[in-house]
């Protein structure tokens, strides 16, 4: 047996003995442990001592020294355990009573913003359905915010009063005749993604968008949007409905149904409002609005260089504030941007 082996056995024994002594809950258990490790005849320390003879001669002094150290430590651990057991349950008149109910020093954990929590959950759910996150600039040109999305110059949505157009040092920002503006929807990202890659595409775009609404309990001039886009050879409205059902079922739990109501958006045709079913407290079936959706308009596919005869696509969008507010029963969405820590700490 080499010196290293001997020392490592000693070390293992020392640890095991110390653990056993400190774990002993009463005198009887401690005695059992004492016999196991320190027993004069068949204790395990005794057994290791017998190994000492097998260590090469030149290492014997070092081995002996190690043995004595370990023995001393094991005996000290036993003594400490004995002391512990003898003091507990005995007279404690001189010790102050211990107040178990005093608070511990609480960790000041921070909270992730509720909108971020909602966004992360939606991203996660859509990720499971194969949608990868895409982002793009919040400041856009008219091509990405309007033209490519089938919103012609005469469309009311392009009215300067319906948008935040930008200037820099008093000069209209952007190339001449192509001003810049804060994007009014995240569909701009869909255009940028489609421009940069061939189909199939399966993404969700998300981020801040801006519209000149007066701030009130249900409106804010800046809000967060999540939009999904799938373009492939055989994408249909049945696929759209099925994806939304999987999504809503995952988000709400249970068996959720999807309803389409015809609507109008420039970048989709057909366009629909999406409702999801929900049972109220009385168990009645209710429909709640989820967002807008539709099949990507052939003009949009054409604008990014896709062939509408080759591929079809669907898109859908949700307002994050609305989803989050409903989920957490927040009655005024301005709270999301006020940053009162008493609000933030609730989530």
């Amino acid at each position, binding site marked *: 047996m080499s010196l290293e082996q001997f020392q490592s056995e000693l070390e293992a024994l020392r640890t095991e003995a110390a653990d056993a002594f400190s774990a002993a809950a009463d005198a009887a258990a401690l005695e059992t442990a004492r016999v196991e490790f320190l027993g004069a005849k068949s204790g395990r320390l005794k057994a290791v001592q017998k190994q000492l003879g097998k260590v090469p001669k030149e290492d014997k002094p070092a081995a002996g020294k190690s043995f004595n150290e370990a023995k001393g430590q094991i005996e000290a651990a036993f003594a400490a355990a004995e002391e512990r057991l003898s003091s507990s349950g005995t007279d404690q008149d001189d010790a102050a009573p211990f107040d178990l109910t005093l608070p511990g020093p609480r960790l*000041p*954990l*921070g*909270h992730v*913003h509720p*909108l*971020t929590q909602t966004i*992360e959950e939606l*991203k996660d759910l859509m*990720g*499971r*359905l*194969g949608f*990868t*996150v895409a982002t793009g*600039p*919040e*400041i*856009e040109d008219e091509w990405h915010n309007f033209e490519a999305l089938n919103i012609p110059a005469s469309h009311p949505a392009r009215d300067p009063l319906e948008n*935040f157009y*930008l*200037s*820099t040092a008093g000069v209209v*920002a*952007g*190339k001449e005749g192509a001003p*810049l503006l804060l994007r009014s929807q995240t569909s701009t990202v869909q255009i940028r993604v489609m421009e940069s890659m061939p189909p*199939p595409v399966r993404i969700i775009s998300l981020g*801040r968008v801006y519209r*000149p609404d007066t*701030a009130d309990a249900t409106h804010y*001039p*800046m809000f967060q949007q999540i939009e999904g886009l799938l373009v*492939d050879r055989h994408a*249909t*409205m*049945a696929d759209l*409905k*099925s*994806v*939304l059902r999987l999504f809503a079922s995952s988000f709400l739990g249970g068996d959720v149904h*999807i*309803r*389409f*109501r*015809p*609507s*109008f958006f420039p970048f989709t*045709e057909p*366009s629909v409002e999406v409702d999801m079913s929900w049972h109220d407290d009385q168990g009645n079936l209710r429909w709640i609005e989820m967002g807008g959706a539709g*099949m990507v*308009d*052939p003009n949009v596919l054409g604008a990014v260089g896709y062939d509408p005869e080759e591929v*079809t696509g669907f898109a859908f969008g949700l307002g994050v504030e609305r989803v989050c507010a409903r989920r957490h029963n927040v009655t005024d969405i301005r709270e999301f*941007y006020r*940053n*009162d*820590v*008493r609000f*933030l700490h609730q989530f």
Partner: protein
Amino acid sequence: MLVSWDWLKQYVQLDITPAELAERLMMAGLNHEGTHPVGSDLAINLEVTSNRPDCLGHIGVAREAAVLTETALQIPPAEPKGTGNAVTKLTSVKVENPDQCWRYTARVVSGVKIGPSPAWLVGRLATVGIGSINNVVDITNYVLMECGQPLHAFDLAKLDGRQIVVRQARKGEPFLAINHKSYTLDETVCVIADAKRAIGLGGVMGGADTEINEQTTELLIESAQFDPVSIRGTARQLNLHSDSSYRFERGIDPEGVDWASRRCCELILELAGGDLAEGVIDIGRQPEPREAVSLRFAQLPRVLGIDVDAAEARRILTALGCREVKHDQQRVEVIPPSWRRDVTREIDLVEEVARIHGYDKIPEDVSVPMAPSHRTRGDRVLARVRQALCAAGFDEAMTLSAVEQEWSDAFSPWTDAAPLRASTPVLRRADRLRRSIVPSLLGARHTNESLANPRIELFEVAHVYLPRGANELPREEMMIAITSGGDYAAVKGALEGLLSALNEKAALLVKPAKLPLLHAQRAAELHVRTGDGAAVLLGYLGEVSQDGLEQFDLRFPATVAELKLAPLIDLANLIPQYHQPPVFPAVSRDLNLVVDESVVWGELSATAREAAGPVAESLTFQDVYRDPKRLGAGKKSLLFSLVLRSDSGTLTSDEADTVHQRVVEACQKAHGAELRT
């Protein structure tokens, strides 16, 4: 759009309840906002999307109902008899701005008797929320609500020169509208004028001067078509929105212009008497024939995912007013109705078929092919950043991307370029796109201080907007900003913790920084080494100066930091590789070196680490101690401990002492440090 239940039934026989009808209409595209009783009638409130101006009249809604219930639609023919003089002998019309006024028609009715409307007419208008004025005005409103075509009746005797001139308004031209408000016009506004003055805002509102009253006997009935963009501009400019402007903005049925005029005259003859002048003045664009659109039946399953019988598709299109040109097994070719300007392409026909056939027929349980998706590196890093900052006690805030000028000017470490400005403030005075998040977080601090919240530790992850050339999109850089009530060291510690959560080897390199808003000494520029070893600018950290606190109206000390996300994404070690923990014991040595005040820890520790060599496992700052009596003036003593460990054997005491000695000597040489014993 308020719809009268009784009125609808004039055009279509309905064997369903109003509730059933509302439900059917909603599922076909007219959202039901509510129904309320008015007298014995019901007012059904429908939301009409901007692509469906044809449903801004009862006939349009009745047509939808007829298609959905597969019943016939009855529209009055409107064929009043002209019995008087030729209209051209009684008046004349000139259109000077055909770009704004696409078409103008006029009929004249003479010898009318203005009086109250019959009860049925008053009732109809009451249901849709319009008060009764007199029989003629009520009729124009009635026909508007019947077919969606705005009309106007002028008192012809009050027209100077008995003529109509449609023209641009003159700059500064005054106008008194029938709402009895005065407006000052400019050249962008299209007015209806007589020989002298404006008597109507084309497509928006009539004028008070030529209003119909009890003395009126001779009427000019206007039915016209205006450019939607021009109408929108005028309505917005004057903040004057009417039932007329609302419809012209969305586009009216060009084939309905004359029908509405005839219908109006027919009712006038019936309810106010008089004679209709022979003929009509009709100036401008005549409705052009529409182009045929093909629907390949195979497109229905291709887009919708369900089969729709070709016969059913054809029935729906015809019932909606499309005229079938030809059809075969594969396709049908139709001419869409004049009132549906939104239907011009095959995909539009697909939608028409789908919404009438019913979206409920589309299944919600088809299997969509699976596809892989991945979380981006940026998302993974951000998740760790949020986790680390929350663990360090920071709450995530979200603030507006735009700030007011004072905040914008207060702090802009990333660029000197002027901020981008929004044409109108995003909120209150916030019109500058922010170049730093720090001022916004100090604003949030102020909010919380004023709410007496004791602990305000915030971070935000958002873009800043750094202008480039005037022709370029700005650079949007993702930043992590922090504000804390703790001091410089506390926030630096949090940032070091954040860094080690991303890469255990990453270290902050610090340089002094002079920035407005921040304390002159306690502000730093932060650098990190990224993957390729180069040091890059990460961000800024500093305690807010007294002036800064005052500027943001803060009562308590604050520290701020702002970091670029990009270097963190670059240096993050998301898939750490295992290395075996050390097997041999460590030896530690404490050092206490006296140095001049000018010597900084960062430099001394770098020297010490280099001198200690590879056996130095860690070098930990313990304390700084000053005592002019014992150490001398301008001196300080730096206490730190050195943990030494070799990966090839247990270090002996002598070996450790040698390293210790090397460190002391190197520090003495480089920094004049003296070992204090």
